[in-house]
Structures are given as C-alpha cells and as structure tokens.
C-alpha cells in the first residue's frame, strides 16, 4: 500500500475550513474503486450522507476480521440514537463539524469527496487522520476526531458482538482458572 500523508498545514488548517491547496495530488490513487457503502435513510440525528461517512470511518477503525467489526456491532446506528440521549449540543456540533472537516480535508488532499474515494485511499486517509490527530492534539479537528473515536470504541466494546462470551450472571467467582476452564465458563469482564 502506498503511503499517504496529510500535511501538518492542511491538517491544522482544516480547523477554520481554510484549506485550499490539494497537497497530496502526487499520491497515486489505488485501483480499487468501491466507494463507501451508502446509507440510504436518514437516522434520528445524522443524515444518510453523514451516516455513510461515519459508518465507513468506524469500520476502518474497527474492521471485521475473524471477529465482528464496527458495522456488525451497529456502532454508528447506536451512536445516532445516542446523539439525542447522550450527546451534548457541543458534541453534536463537534461530530457534524468533523464530517465537514473530513470532507474538506479529503477534497484538498485527494481531490474528491471522502465517500467517493476508493477503499484503499479512504483507508489510508483515515489511518493518516488518526495519526495526525494524536500528533496534534490541540487542533480542533483532532479534538473532534478523538472524541468520535473514543465513543466509537466505547460503543463497539460494549456491544453484544464484541462480547460473545459475556455472562450477565456468572453465579460464582473463581480466582485461579486455566484458559480452558475459562472458555468453558465464558468471560465475565
């Protein structure tokens, strides 16, 4: 996979939507052409197009492997509902801004809107966004992204799909069991 870089200037510049120059035009586009799987129905909070982008990003964060991914765990659908029952107006604004910032960053970096990028480009783009977000934690886009990532991970790791061996009622505590004994009983963390 070829390397993709979001320049520091572009990353930080996205704070105020002032990014103007496509700085990554030199990056060869991947041949894969499957754009983000569109969500066709508006959610309770997010629009269909917003859900498309968020669901795509969440799956890059926590992809399906031999275990379920973010999509399998309905992470963004749960988040959409939580935007009305959990999120403050500040968080609601943050996440909407994040989508816009990602779109802008994608246009400036890759020359097209995020959802229309091929899979490999989107993957590299989000990986780079993640890296930059933790390198420049004081920027607005970083704060928005890290907050989004945090809640995506929280929803995923509290999902039924991510905890197939969860026991609501363990019935007992055993403080020294083997891995085999544990797998027979189920995990309780």
């Amino acid at each position: 996979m070829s390397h993709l870089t979001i320049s520091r200037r572009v990353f930080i510049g996205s704070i105020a939507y002032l990014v103007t120059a496509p700085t990554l035009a030199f990056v060869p586009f991947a041949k894969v052409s499957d754009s983000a799987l569109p969500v066709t129905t508006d959610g309770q909070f997010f629009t269909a197009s917003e859900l498309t982008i968020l669901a795509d990003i969440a799956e890059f964060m926590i992809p399906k492997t031999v275990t379920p991914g973010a999509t399998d765990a309905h992470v963004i659908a749960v988040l959409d509902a939580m935007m009305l029952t959990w999120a403050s107006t500040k968080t609601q604004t943050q996440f909407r801004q994040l989508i816009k910032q990602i779109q802008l960053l994608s246009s400036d970096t890759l020359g097209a809107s995020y959802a229309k990028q091929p899979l490999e480009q989107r993957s590299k783009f989000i990986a780079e966004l993640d890296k930059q977000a933790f390198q420049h934690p004081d920027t607005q886009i970083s704060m928005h992204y890290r907050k989004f990532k945090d809640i995506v991970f929280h929803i995923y790791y509290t999902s039924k799909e991510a905890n197939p061996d969860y026991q609501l009622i363990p019935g007992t505590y055993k403080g020294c069991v083997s891995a085999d004994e544990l797998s027979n009983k189920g995990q309780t963390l």
Partner: protein
Amino acid sequence: MKQKYDVIVVGSGITGGWAAKEFCEKGYNTLVIERGRHVEHGGEEYTDMQAPWDIENRNKVPEIFDEQGRYQTINDKGYFKNATKQFFADDKEHPISYPDDKPVRWVRSYQLGGRSVTWGRQVLRWGPKDFIANAKDGHGIPWPIGYDDLAPWYDYVERFIGVSANRDGLDVLPDGVFQKPWEMSCAEQYIAKNIAKHYDDRRLIIGRAANITEPTPEQMALGRAPCQARSYCKRGCTFGAYFSSLSATLPAAKRTGKLTIVTDAVVESILYDNKQQRVTGVNIVDTNTKQTRQYHARTVFLCASAFASVQILLNSTSEHFPNGLANSSGMLGHYIMDHFSGVVAHAEVPGYEDKFAYGRRPIATYIPNYRHEKLADANFVRGYGYQATAQHRRNTGTHAKKAGIGAAVKDASMQPQPWRFLAIMYGEMLPYFSNRISLHPNKKDQWGIPLLHVDAEIHENERNMIKRASLDIVEMLNTAGCTDIKVNQVPDDEHIQIGDRIHEMGGACMGADPKTSVLNKWAQSHDVPNLFVTDGACMSSCATQNPSLTYMAITARAVDYADKLLKQGVI
C-alpha cells in the same frame, strides 16, 4: 389532625432501616421519614439485569449534565454511571457550602433506602484498640463504650445482614458471624502468603462483604438469594443478595404491620417541648408541594446520615437550645471526620500467566491497620490500612484514546496482561475540634432550610501518615515479590476532600461527659432523653475500617435500650 406514632425514625438508609426493623419487631408503631422518593426493591429503577449493550447510552451519563453543571462533585467517579445515576443526589439541586480553599464532597442518595442502595458493603468490626484510641492519645472525646459493649450487637447485626468472610483470627479485626468467604485470586493468594511470611503484624485478607453466600432461612424468608458474583451492586440487586434497607430491614419491618413510611419529606427541624424537656416530633417540608406538616411521637431516632442529622439538630432551635437541639455542650457540629486516602499503589504480580479469573467478585481484599501502637518509624498517631485487589488480570485495553486503528490494533486489544495488584490507603483521621459543620448564616436550600457549611481538612498527622503509608506499601509489595511498583502519593499542598471516601462521621459525638459530648453511651442525647442519633454522627473517632457495620450495631443496641426506657415510661 395530629399524627402520632411511638417512634419517628428520620432517614431510611442503613441505620434508619435498622431502627425501623427493631422498633417494629418490638411492637412499636414506627414512622420512617425519607426525604427522597420511593424506590421499589427490584423495581424499574434497578438496572442490574441489563447487559452492557442494554444499558441506556451504553452506561454513559448524558453530557447535558455537565453543560448544566449537575453532579459536578461526583461526575468523575467510577460509581457514577448511567446505570447508577438515579441513586445519587445532584449537588446542583442540593448544594452545600464550604470554604473556597477546602472543597467538600458530600455524596448523597436521596431515595428510600438512602446510601444502603449504593454502599461498598465492606463490613469490618472495629477492634478493642479502636475504641480506646481517643482516650489513649488524647484526641477527641473518649469513647464511652468499648468493644465488649458492642460485640454481641455485631453478632446480632451480622447474623441478619449476612456477611461473607474468612475467620482470620486478627485482634485488630475481630471475627464474627460469617458465611462462606469469597476466594482470592491466585495473585492475591501469592501476595497474602508472602506478606504473612515476612510480617508478624500485617496480613492481606479477603474482604468481608455484606453479600450473602449461604442465605439463612431468615434471609430467604425475606426473599434474599445468594450473591451471583455480578458486582453490579450499585445498580440495585434484584436477588437481594447484598444487604440494603430495601432488601432486608424495611421488608422485615413492613411484615410486622407496624411500619409507616413517608417519602418525599425533608425533616426541617425537631419539635421540642421546653416544659417537658422532651422532643415531641418533627417538622417536615413536603418536597413536592413545599408545604409543611408535623408528625409526633414519643421518641425520635435521627438516622439521616452524619452531616444531615447534625444539620437537623442545628436547625432545631428553641428557647432552651438557642444553638441547636441537644447542644448544651456546644459540641454539636464539631469533630467531623472521614477516612482519607493519599496513596494509591499498584504493582505487577509475577507468574500465573496461564491463570485467569471467572466471575465478578463483589468485594476487594484488605490489609487491616497494623499501626495501632506507635512504632519507631512513625511521626504520627493512629494508623491506616489498605483496600486492595487483583481479582482479575489486566488486559491491553483498546486504542480508544491513543493512535492506531485497523485490524492489527483490534487484534492486539483486550489481550491478557500480567496480574497487577492495586492498593489504596485508608487512613484514620483524627477528631479535630476545628473540623466542624454549621449552618450557613444566609443561604438556604429550595425548601428554606439553611445550607450546611462544612469547614474541615486533614492536618499534619494525616500528612505524615500518607508519607509513611507510601513507604510501607512499597516495602510490602517488594517483600511480597511484586515488580514494576508504581505509587501515587498526594502532595502535601494538595487538599484532600472530606467526604471523598463517603465515610463522614462525627458532629454529635458520644462521650461520658455531658459537658464535652452530645450523646451518651447509648447514642442518646445527654440533654433530651427521648432523642437518639445513631448514624455516623455519633462516632467519636473514625478508626480505619469501613464504618457501616458499627453504625448498625450501635443502632440495634440503642433501640434495645430505648425499648426498655419506653416500657418503663421513662421516655
């Protein structure tokens, strides 16, 4: 119409429930007044049967609370989650006052059952040395009772509530009426064994939990079942496996037919008859209508929690008691205490890489206070213990708050890590006269009751304890064979909030001398014979053990005494 009862119990928490049960079972018409709302045991407010994915907002507290400045004193606490938030009072709605440089954390639960719904369930007897500490080193008011006075009442209370514990044979932490203990993890057993091998005076023991493991016929008759190792206790327990007023004492009181419960009623003050020199009842404010009314009884038991009971007394002024009811000594509001924790340590426990734990044990392990006698290395009096745990192996966690996404990151997440042992110091705060609660001169709450003003802090003795406790735990963990020892110690210039451990005590201390104490050895007012205060307010020192078991024993003993006085017509 005058509403008259034999007894009024103010508060339905851990001591209020006990007072209600004991009086009702002795045949007295008993009124329990609770300021919070009614909660049904096992009802819809309990969230213990919800899996993580079933809990609203995946157990995240709505962010609007922060925007609105609500729950600011507890919003950073692990126990305050979406599944438990209904059991905690909002400090914005129920403010208190304190000096700007000495903030206080008063964690409250305003519902039927009070904090017994959310308590830590660690039930530890005090030892003989704890009751003589004040007399021995001259701090605070000497206790008018000793361990032997309370021992049979500890038995009595433990038998009813159900205590799962090991018989450890320690003088500093007497054994009692126990059910089958919880087991230690292999890492905890390893540390316990090594500490016992190297020290004569220190032990790591399994905690003593008010979670039943072998329910008695009496407990089963109340609908209580064995603990299922879920550790969701703070969400309420549908099984009734942990002791609370809702699961045990109030149902026991209710089945006598002698119990009346009034919720949504804040006791504003206690009625006092100057002529008879007796209390005659209480004034309450209905929290829904804000209307006031009175209830009358032959005896009043204050069980509203340490700070709240003192607040009621301070607000109950009369010609005879212009500075607060039962306050001829002038000691009301003084000597307030809490446990404090200035040291948190954790360390890796080597070995056992092929071992895991199953289930969620509802209790931690415990290192009891080993510093009752002043050792050569101590520049303080009293001592400290540690609440500790290694009940599960740690795991690698996730990358939610650090860089990295994708399959490789996912596969590396939540993977088993070596066992780690965590220890939190619990120190004994001395009873200082200067640490006091009073009524704010002009600020009032939404019901027109003066706000409580808390002015309290730890002093040099406690700071010195922290330094030594830090050294001690490092030494113990080293000795126990641990590695990668990390210690967080609160700096000298950092304020430690009173109330942070949720063990507020004092303010209406027991003592033999009416000139220096508020209550006698029966937790009965020196000044007003039909007034008792049996919650944390009555404590003359705070020891290092979790105090609820002692409150319960004091309450049951006080009711037994009041029963005799009532029958004799003395009160």
